[in-house]
């Protein structure tokens, strides 16, 4: 080939100018933006058909949903509150996913993080509040981190499939919480709903000034930003991305894949445990069965929707938080079961996963097939 080319190739020159790299960057970003949005729209259309089939009005449904999720300052705050734990729960899926691991048992880490935080808060009653809250956070992170870190360790050192083991461990965690909350840690005063003793008021985490949203939103957002920096800007993140692409190649390169997997899964579990701690310290005031509210499972959907990009998790978590928040209003206004939201989430999830097949398929997103702008043609 090289013999037949007399002068420098147009592409080489363009590349040297960064023009093609820029085109590729734009194309990739456009693709990563357009395909999920299109999938969301398709999912909503399919859900409209479902709602029509059960004899309700999709227009009214989406209108109600908007009103319940984002229509007023009150509902926006409600959505943000529900999105806060989803940020952390989604990180529990997204971080291991960068290493090629499908961890779906974040619910277990949330539950145990909450129980650990509640136990610490009750045991240290009387100590200075900043210290107790800090230790509650540490306890939540440690409990969740050990739980999911163990999943990673089992994966690497024993080749136990992480999807199934994490889910089994979620069931074990919930049984453990029930045992502790009904037995050793039970507050005798909690009759109908077994709970741990309530936290003293000074150990509760309040709201962000001027809002009815607790600090968990800020913590979760920070966690997402830090996770993004970790993955994109540090050598550990770089190593994780290599190991996620090909474990063998990473090992040949001399990367310590084992510690990398355990570290990433432990960090992921730590975030989920922190979500549990925040639920206890900011919302529930004690550890009880409400900790297993399904945030861990919605988090899976958030992470996949965001394509495991921590920054994309922020808007997606708030969107899903809004859908969750509107569930009650849909139930009351339209006489639909509360599981309606679950059906919508399931449909969106399937469509989003299906849309993976379209990456790289559209000419629209392939810079090679874009026409070269006219003003460059005479330049060579």
């Amino acid at each position: 080939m090289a013999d037949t080319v007399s002068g420098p190739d147009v592409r080489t020159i363009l590349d040297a100018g960064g023009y093609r790299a820029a085109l590729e960057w734009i194309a990739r970003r456009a693709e990563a933006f357009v395909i999920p949005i299109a999938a969301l729209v398709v999912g909503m259309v399919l859900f409209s058909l479902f709602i029509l089939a059960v004899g309700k009005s999709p227009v009214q449904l989406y209108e109600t949903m908007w009103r319940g999720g984002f229509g007023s300052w009150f509902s926006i705050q409600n959505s943000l509150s529900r999105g806060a734990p989803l940020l952390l729960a989604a990180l529990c899926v997204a971080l291991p996913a960068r290493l090629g691991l499908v961890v779906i048992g974040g619910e277990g880490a949330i539950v145990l993080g909450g129980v650990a935080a509640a136990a610490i808060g009750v045991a240290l009653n009387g100590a200075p509040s900043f210290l107790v809250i800090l230790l509650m956070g540490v306890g939540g992170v440690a409990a969740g981190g050990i739980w999911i870190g163990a999943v990673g360790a089992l994966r690497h050192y024993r080749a136990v499939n992480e999807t199934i083991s994490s889910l089994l461990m979620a069931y074990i965690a919930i049984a453990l919480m029930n045992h502790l909350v009904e037995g050793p840690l039970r507050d005798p005063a909690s009759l109908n709903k077994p709970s741990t003793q309530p936290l003293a008021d000074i150990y509760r985490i309040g709201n962000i000034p001027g809002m009815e949203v607790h600090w968990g939103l800020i913590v979760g957002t920070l966690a997402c930003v830090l996770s993004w920096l970790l993955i994109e800007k540090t050598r550990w993140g770089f190593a994780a991305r290599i190991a996620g692409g090909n474990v063998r190649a990473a090992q040949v390169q001399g990367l310590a894949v084992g510690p990398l997997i355990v570290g990433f899964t432990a960090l992921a579990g730590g975030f989920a445990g922190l979500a549990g701690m925040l639920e206890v310290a900011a919302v529930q005031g004690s550890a009880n069965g409400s900790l297993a509210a399904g945030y861990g499972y919605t988090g899976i959907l958030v992470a996949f929707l965001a394509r495991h990009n921590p920054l994309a998790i922020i808007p997606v978590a708030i969107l899903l938080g809004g859908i969750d928040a509107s569930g009650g209003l849909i139930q009351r206004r339209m006489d639909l079961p509360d599981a309606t939201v679950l059906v919508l989430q399931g449909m969106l999830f399937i469509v989003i996963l299906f849309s993976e097949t379209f990456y790289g398929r559209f000419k629209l997103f392939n810079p090679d097939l874009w026409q070269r702008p006219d003003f460059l043609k005479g330049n060579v």
Partner: protein
Amino acid sequence: MEATDIGLWGVPLAMLGGAIRVSTPFIFVSLGEAITERSGRINLGLEGTLVFGAMSAYAVAVMTGSPWLGLLAAAVAGLCFGLFHGWICKFPKVNDIAIGIALMLFGTGLAFFFGKPFIQPSAPDLPAISFGAWSDVPQVQAALNVNVLFLIGAALAVFLWWAFRNTRIGLIVRVVGDSADAARAMGLNPNTVRLMATGVGGALAGIGGAYLSLYYPGSWTERISSGQGLMAVALVIFARWNPLGCFAAALLFGGAGALGPALQSVGVTQGYYLFYAAPYILTLIIMIATSSPSRTLAGAPGELSITK
């Protein structure tokens, strides 16, 4: 039936009875999953299929008065879920494990959505055969009251074990599961075979769900399955994709699940919730014990993504 005081003998007896009662859904889901996985694909969505099967069986049984029509409805519903999984996974870059998780969510959501009106009414039960009539002890009679589906499941396990080894269809499924390239060379279309295998697997999972709502525990509630569909997936790995092994493992799991209630019946109430976790802990221990980082599992289908 009045309880006769038989002391601690009640524990193994209750566990045996519990094993027979609790294991049936595991038998069906795991046999279905064994067929699917043998064809080289994994369907984690069987948990959702199980719940939806339980709901549709109950709803149809309430409306028609026939538990058998309910069972049929569950099988058809399961078939549809399975075929959908099989169809969507044939597209490139679509991850079968993730689609399974999505279908789990979707199936559960649909079951809760349509199942709301059926939480109150009661449906006719599937019939059971009493093998314990020879005994005067009520606990023995209770333990040996065996549902027909358990017997069908046992027969199915033997049949599948035979069919995988000795029939043309069994061979086709195994070839596709071990090497899609070899199957293509033989003129087989792996996607079609997997579609069928996933469909059959879904139908069996639906039947497992019907057993839950129509026999034991015998009513439709939103907490009817607590991960049985998923434990069945782990169970298949433990059983090394062997249908007879699936049957034995299902009995073991049923027994583990019956440990808590059995101990409670003789007055041990300490740590009830921990005993409730016994089947999950058992599954996890078995998976840890049987997995190994240095070799692939014996008998694992070569194309199966979960064991790579």
